[in-house]
């Protein structure tokens, strides 16, 4: 199913469209939010956060510009940003309170901020400049939170080799971007 067909389906039949979106992209969204929430969140928090991302997607469907990114890309950006925001709230509120969804949050609009878009381009270029398999390793370790063991199995490498490459790639990214990397 293409992105255009998916959006059409959501508009025609919200239930079917939303269900399809979750089936197609929940693995990606859940991966990203879980990886980001690791320091303070539970599995339940990750599920809540992932479902918030789909709600925000559904409510802001009109903001999507498919010339500026795929549904998968938009969801990944929203997952990362929303998980960071939930993580901040979780750290601030450790008394078990429910974290409510910010109804006004729109993580799906295309940013016209030239500076932001330039930073995004620099990060993407820096990741790509690592070359393969290092760029894949960095994305899978630090965006999807996959373990070195999982990555090693897929890339047919040893666990140690993935660890070494990931550490070296992280150092290189740090040099390219400046500062200390966090997941």
């Amino acid at each position: 199913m293409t992105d255009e067909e998916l959006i059409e389906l959501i508009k025609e039949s919200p239930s079917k469209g939303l269900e399809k979106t979750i089936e197609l992209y929940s693995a990606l969204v859940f991966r990203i939010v879980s990886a980001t929430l690791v320091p303070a969140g539970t599995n339940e928090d990750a599920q809540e956060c992932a479902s918030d991302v789909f709600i925000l997607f559904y409510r802001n469907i009109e903001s999507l510009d498919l010339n500026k990114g795929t549904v998968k890309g938009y969801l990944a950006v929203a997952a990362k940003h929303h998980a960071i925001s939930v993580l901040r709230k979780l750290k601030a509120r450790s008394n078990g309170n429910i974290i409510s969804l910010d109804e006004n949050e729109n993580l799906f609009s295309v940013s016209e901020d030239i500076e932001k878009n330039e930073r995004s381009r620099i990060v993407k270029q820096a990741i790509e400049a690592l070359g393969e398999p290092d760029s894949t390793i960095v994305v899978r370790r630090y965006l999807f939170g996959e373990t070195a063991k999982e990555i090693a199995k897929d890339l047919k490498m040893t666990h140690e080799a993935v660890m070494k490459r990931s550490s070296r790639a992280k150092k290189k990214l740090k040099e390219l971007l400046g500062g200390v990397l966090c997941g």
Partner: protein
Amino acid sequence: MAKINPFAELNAEDMSVLVEKYDGKIDPKQLEAIKEKTFCKAGLERKKSFSSIKVIRIAIAAAAVFVVVLSAVITLSVIRNKPKTAAPTTVVPSSSVSDTNPLITAISKGDDKLIGSLLENSVFVNEDVLNYAMKYRNLLSYRSISNITKAVKEKFGMTGLDPLVENAVLGNSAEVVRLLQSKESLGSLNDKIAYFFSAAFCSGDTLRLFNEKGIEIGTTDTNGDTIYEIAKKYGNTENQKYALNMGMQN
């Protein structure tokens, strides 16, 4: 040195390139949980596949339809046998729960006013409404949650809530006191929820026991309200006095 999170800097266009090849799988249980939560928040009804719960629900609905049809037949036969001058008896058609239960939608939107009106018709009260009410409790007034709990209890004879929470929500002070006396110490999330509801609907004795058994007097609920503020909001003067006597500020 500043910490940077490179992936948070990416816009949709650049992220799309990086995640294009991702084809990971998700545990079906996680998938189901995400779907359930998302549909609940969106106020949409899922077209679920047949499950045992669905079969039971359909059976209950079929039985309800049968009862309505049967009573209609009986009523019609009574009308036919009555003298023509008698006032006609009308059979009120049983309203059925629509595909999207408006009560659940109202709960998920925190619409207390609409919840109040919908509760007048018990047809919207099903096994799920209380789960949703507790889930979205930070959006709802304590009064709405209490009314939903009462409606569920009346319809099904039970609520499935933790007994301490249930009795606090329903304002059963004596039962709350009895349950509290049987507990060694308190501190769980349920204990705190019961504490806040007791501030709204129970007597001062209950609050004293909660505090004696380990709940901090200044604990605040999801809206940041203390027991004093909750008691004030729900007109519980006894608990307002208790909170003030315990040193809380007016």
